[in-house]
């Protein structure tokens, strides 16, 4: 059973507030839902406290706005996730680039990896 939604996640306000439509979370593409789920899962595993994620997100939103980058909410979310992962040394940039290239070229197509740990 998944835990009940963490209010720290659902009540983020201001620029960091989750995109919603009449209360329902809005994901424009499947990857947005995955990126959302990964960030929340890592918090549930106590890899980081939620406020660390929120702070990273707020920073990315501010930086992109300041530099006039018209990135979407979940692009900023993904960048925040990546920042935290790199900071905590959970993955390296090289690993990410390499894995991404494998998916892009079709060399790897193990859709979404094992379902159990």
């Amino acid at each position, binding site marked *: *059973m*998944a*835990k*009940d*939604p963490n*209010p720290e*996640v*659902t*009540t983020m*306000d201001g620029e960091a*507030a989750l995109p*919603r439509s*009449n*209360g*329902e*979370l809005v994901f424009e*593409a*499947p*990857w*947005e*839902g*995955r*990126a*959302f*789920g*990964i960030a*929340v*899962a*890592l918090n*549930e*595993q106590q*890899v980081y406290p939620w406020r660390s994620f929120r702070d990273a997100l707020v920073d990315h939103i501010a930086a992109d706005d300041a530099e006039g980058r018209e990135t979407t909410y*979940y*692009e900023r979310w*993904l960048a925040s*996730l*990546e920042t935290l*992962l790199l900071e905590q040394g*959970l*993955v390296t940039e090289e*690993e*990410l680039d390499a*894995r*991404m290239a494998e*998916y*892009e070229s*079709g060399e*790897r*197509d*193990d*859709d*979404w*990896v*094992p*379902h*159990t*740990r």
Partner: protein
Amino acid sequence: MHDDNHDGHDHHDGHGGHHPEPESYPALRTRAIESLLAEKGLIASDAIDAIVEKFEQDIGPMNGAKVVARAWVDPEFKRRLLENGTEAIAEMGYWGTQGAEIIVLENTPDVHNVVVCTLCSCYPWPVLGLPPMWYKSAPYRSRVVREPRAVLKEFGTELGDDVEVRVQDSTAEVRYLVLPERPEGTERMSEQELAALVTRDAMIGVTKIQVPAQVR
């Protein structure tokens, strides 16, 4: 309603081998992150499915239930809640209606409130989560205004002729939460136990709170 048979795994469709168009940078990046983290044993993909589903479907009538239970045990909170629902609910940490006000309506032995949104599906989601399908349906939206007693009866709620039924129409600016009557026989229950009795439907006003069998 079986047109979308989610078994929790079919989110993966569309990421498989046959891409007519190349995947976007963020889609590929997300895949790479998930793949690496799973390899390292930090996350499991089915756990992510469950989380996304949970958040999509269940931001939670539980928040509203906690508000109701607090009002039942704390008369001072109840007074504030009925006076200014938005503020009293914010006290408990639930908010985010993007400007909409929440008005709390108390059901009593004499007055029964029931909530609808005749125009669309406005709903006090910070406390009730996602609206149920029937709340958004055209028949509910039109019928509950014309024949509220008949509709309530279909939900199993029979009201005496001496009970005044008030149908409250939500708008983008004002959302309603019904404070149901506290059932008899629950005097000894804790706030937490009471919250578990409170149902979403009772907070929309289509049902009453049932007395739990064990305290009857």
